[in-house]
């Protein structure tokens, strides 16, 4: 019934979909197995993509030829570029999406991708021979052969949902959990652990009073995620902001004795930065209110998502507390919030290419690795898909460095440090964030992907065109001299000090209070030179000029870091032999098996002198 595949992807969430698309686009024969064909690419939590640090990841996925950016652009109902007032490293694209349209668009794109077969079934085991995976076994009893397998099980592995004192198995509300796989993997020697996450109640938008809330509209102009030209919506939907108050907190507290969080029924560790409302009240008792975002779920639905109110308290407590919130006096609940516990596999068991150290050709991606968030999952799926394809053809792995991409930071963090709580990306995790901007993801990554055969010719052409135009604009700005008489009225209008003689345009642009867009608007000669270039390219040139000092500072640090990064540790290096290392260092190094000295230096508990000792020992 089934042919032999190059790559089987288990799970069709954000990670699984990207994995299937990447492997198939590279030419692998792919089977995507999901428990339910109706729920491909679900947004299980909030109906939004991107945000700070996450938006950068989506841009990187797109630059590499993944689909998340395109799907997000096609299904968005609102777009905002966050942090425009800060430096360009912080500019972060974020969209609200139509939950159903997002899922449909993904499915359409996958269906239109050659080389992908679909099958609805639950995978309950793996075909393993000689420490190598050869396919999967399904609950319907099929044994399907493949060269590689990518597991992207999300929150489904032995998922347990909690609402108050009620507790039942499930991967999402109203969906069955996946059972059996964890146990099979543990038998093979994998270590597993529990995490938890939660989601807020969904509310009937018709029952809310928006007059009592602040409106948060989208940007007047949508730039979007994809570097390709994807049509953007003509109109947008607004979000709304409201706040809890002391009375809301008091009511929520009446349910604490029945909360699975506080009664010890949940063992898993939840994310500190995305806490449930009961957690916030408990940990930050001094705060009298917490901010809530009312996010529409789509174009054609009245359902709204109550961001900031994640909870697993009993339904009636959720309901009573909700109705005290300004604007929610008559609120009706569609579905209650809940907490979910699930199995994950500490990611220190993986190699850089996301293949497991224990079983050859078996890859893990997404929440199974202890991450949280669609973007974090999607980028792992993309990399796992690429590397599963590479493995199936015995080609070398594709690995991004910390200085290449947020994706590189994420994977390096996971496999070097592991994670004890659901891992979410922050810009502060990226030591080189000034280099890893959303605006240059294509310049950083597309060429690499194009050479692999993943990014299309169209993408590569656009990158080449952008690079050349940026250089031309920089030359113009460096050569164009503007008279003081022309400059001063403009400088005066933006409260910048005037000049006494003519100046190069570039010199004016370097002032902190000056923007190229403003200069173009006020200086006709400059405008005439630049108006033919696309806006995105002008912005790129402006960033490169204005922030050059900082960009160079970081490049210097990258160069220093890469000295260690380029020193590879032989694969079978025996750390136990080195008596000069402390016990803790020896154990950690043996467990994680760092690939380079740079990675070794980032393992927690490994100090600089350990690295020096390694340097001396290594080699030959």
């Amino acid at each position, binding site marked *: 019934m089934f042919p032999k595949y190059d790559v089987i992807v288990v799970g069709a969430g954000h990670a699984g979909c990207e994995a299937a698309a990447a492997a198939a686009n590279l030419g692998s024969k792919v089977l995507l197995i999901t428990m339910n064909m109706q729920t491909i690419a679900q947004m299980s939590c*909030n109906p939004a993509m991107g*945000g*700070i*640090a996450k938006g950068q990841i989506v841009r990187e996925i797109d630059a590499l030829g993944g689909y998340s950016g395109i799907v997000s652009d096609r299904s968005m109902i609102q777009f905002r570029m*966050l*942090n425009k*007032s*800060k*430096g360009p*490293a*912080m500019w972060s694209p974020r969209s609200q999406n139509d939950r159903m349209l997002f899922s449909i668009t993904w499915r359409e794109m996958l269906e239109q991708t050659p080389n992908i077969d679909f099958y609805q079934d639950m995978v309950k085991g793996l075909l393993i021979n000689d420490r190598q995976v050869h396919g999967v076994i399904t609950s319907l009893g099929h044994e399907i052969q493949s060269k590689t397998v990518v597991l992207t099980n999300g929150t489904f592995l032995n998922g347990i949902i909690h609402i108050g004192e009620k507790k039942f198995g499930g991967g999402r509300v109203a969906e069955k959990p996946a059972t059996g796989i964890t146990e099979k993997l543990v038998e093979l020697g994998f270590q597993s652990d529990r995490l938890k996450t939660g989601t807020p109640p969904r509310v009937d938008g018709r029952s809310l009073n928006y007059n009592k809330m602040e409106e948060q509209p989208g940007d007047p102009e949508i730039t979007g995620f994809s570097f390709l030209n994807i049509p953007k919506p003509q109109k947008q939907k607004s979000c709304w902001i409201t706040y809890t108050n002391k009375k809301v907190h008091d009511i929520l507290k009446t349910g604490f004795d029945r909360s699975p969080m506080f009664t010890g029924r949940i063992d898993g560790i939840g994310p*500190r*930065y*995305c*806490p449930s409302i009961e957690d*916030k009240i408990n*940990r*930050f008792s001094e*705060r009298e209110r*917490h*901010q809530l975002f009312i996010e529409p779920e789509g174009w054609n639905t009245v359902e709204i998502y109550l*961001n*900031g109110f*994640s909870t697993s308290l009993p339904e009636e407590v959720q309901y009573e507390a909700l109705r005290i919130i300004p604007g929610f006096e008559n609120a009706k609940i569609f579905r209650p919030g809940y907490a979910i516990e699930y199995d994950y596999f500490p990611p220190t068991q993986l190699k850089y290419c996301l293949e497991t150290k224990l079983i050859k050709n078996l890859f893990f991606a997404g929440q199974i690795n202890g991450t949280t968030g669609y973007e974090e999952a999607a980028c792992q799926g993309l990399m796992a898909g690429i590397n599963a394809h590479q493995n199936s053809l015995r080609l070398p792995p594709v690995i991004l460095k910390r200085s290449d991409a947020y994706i590189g930071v994420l994977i390096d963090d996971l496999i070097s440090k592991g994670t004890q709580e659901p891992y979410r990306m*922050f*810009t*502060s*995790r990226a*030591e080189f*964030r*000034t280099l890893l901007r959303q605006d240059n993801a294509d310049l950083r990554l597309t060429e690499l992907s194009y050479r692999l055969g993943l990014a299309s010719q169209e993408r590569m052409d656009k990158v080449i065109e952008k690079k050349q135009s940026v250089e031309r604009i920089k030359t113009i700005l460096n050569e164009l001299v503007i008279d003081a008489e022309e400059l001063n009225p403009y400088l005066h209008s933006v409260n910048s000090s005037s000049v006494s003689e003519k100046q190069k345009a570039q010199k004016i642009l370097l002032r*902190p209070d000056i923007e190229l867009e403003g200069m173009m608007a006020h200086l006709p000669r400059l405008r005439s030179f630049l108006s033919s270039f696309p806006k995105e390219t002008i912005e790129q040139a402006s960033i490169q000029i204005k*922030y050059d000092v*900082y960009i160079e*500072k*970081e490049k210097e640090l990258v*160069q220093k870091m890469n*000295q260690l990064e*380029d*020193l*590879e540790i032989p694969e079978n290096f025996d750390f136990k032999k*080195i*008596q*000069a*290392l402390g016990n803790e260092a020896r154990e950690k190094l043996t467990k994680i098996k760092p690939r380079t000295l740079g990675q070794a230096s980032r393992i*927690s508990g490994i*100090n*600089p*002198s350990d690295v*020096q*000792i390694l*340097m*001396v*020992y*290594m*080699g*030959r």
Partner: protein
Amino acid sequence: MKSVIWEDTIVALATPPGIGAIGVIRLSGKKTFEIINELFPSKNFAEEASHSLHVGFIKHHGEILDEVVVSIYRSPRSYTGEDVVEISGHGSPFVLQQIINACIENGARLARPGEFTQRAFLNGKLDLTQAEAVADLIASNTSISQKAALHNIRGGFSQQLKELRERLIRFSALIELELDFSQEDVEFADRRQLQELIDEVDKVTTSLIDSFKLGNVVRNGISVAIIGKPNAGKSTLLNALLNEERAIVSDIPGTTRDTVEEVINIDGILFRLIDTAGIRQHSTDIIESAGMQRSIEKMKQADLVIYLFDVNEITTQELGEIKNNFSIQQSRYLLVGNKIDLVSEQSAREKFSEDPEILFISAIKQQHIDDLKERMVNTVLEGEVQTESTIVTNARHFHALRQLRTALGDVKKGINDKIPGDLVAIDIRRCLHYLGEITGEITNEDQLDYIFSKFCIGK
């Protein structure tokens, strides 16, 4: 394996720190010949043959630092495999340090412990057995220098730096919070408070830089005061201590034997015996009260006090009072009972059985002088007194501090120019990096932990 190309040229003292007949400074890296050409202008080393020796003067800012022998080794025929020169100078730590500083000013950087060996190994110049031995050495060196590092910042500065660093991490966390959670309703970093904190760090940094004037650290060594009543035998002890050392007493600039101090080198550590002239002049005819006053003055100046007494004269009660006095003055002291040649050591021990730490000697018969020396050295090695052997560590701190000051300046400028937080954060991270070099390590997790423990963050 890939051959390693190191961008920077490194320099360090290759011989043990302290006073020796000669001291060897090793330079290795791309800019080695460029640097030595600057310092040794009478030759062009780019044209000299490998494995050749050259005698001449090291000059810096037009001043002759030392007459030296320079040996040159061309890559790959050198210890590290890179271009290497070794400068053999006279053994004064002060002069050697000046030469090292001159190398640094010309583009070298101070080597980390074991760094020459690392380069040697990575360039395939050492085999595994050699490397193993060196690795153990590096491990032990590093732990000692790490321990020493925190001890030897003077006047409790290290504690202060740690506190400032923690406050800076807190601020940096606030800025990160402001950046990563700008969409939430969280409190943000107050720029005025940040400015004040930066000023404070800057002040401490500057005073540390001043206190670290390298020459002084080298020149000072450990100051030792020998005090005691007239006739306790101070002058005799002085001679006993100086006796064998006389040959290698160094002429440290600004000090001569006749005026204020003698310098002795015990196991490579420099001890400066202060007010030796006073001991000689006043040894017999000093008036008691004036003598006490003088003793107190000396105690204040000294890093280490040797209290010498005649075991036959002093009562245990008197000794108790003296000990009290020392505790009040917070002096680091050694109690030394002299003249055991007149009674037996045994009976002296019995008399002072309540004070087991007393060292019994006979200055005149030179009995147990070596024990006293060992005790002096141990006091230093225990880290209770500033040590000569930490010059290099100090120099590293000194350079970290100077870079810290530059980064602090960048932060200040950034705040003044109201540049965005993510750019200010780059310079704050640089500050934390250099502070971390002095006080220990820093990781991003410090900041994240702070964020998560203190702030309520939505989604």
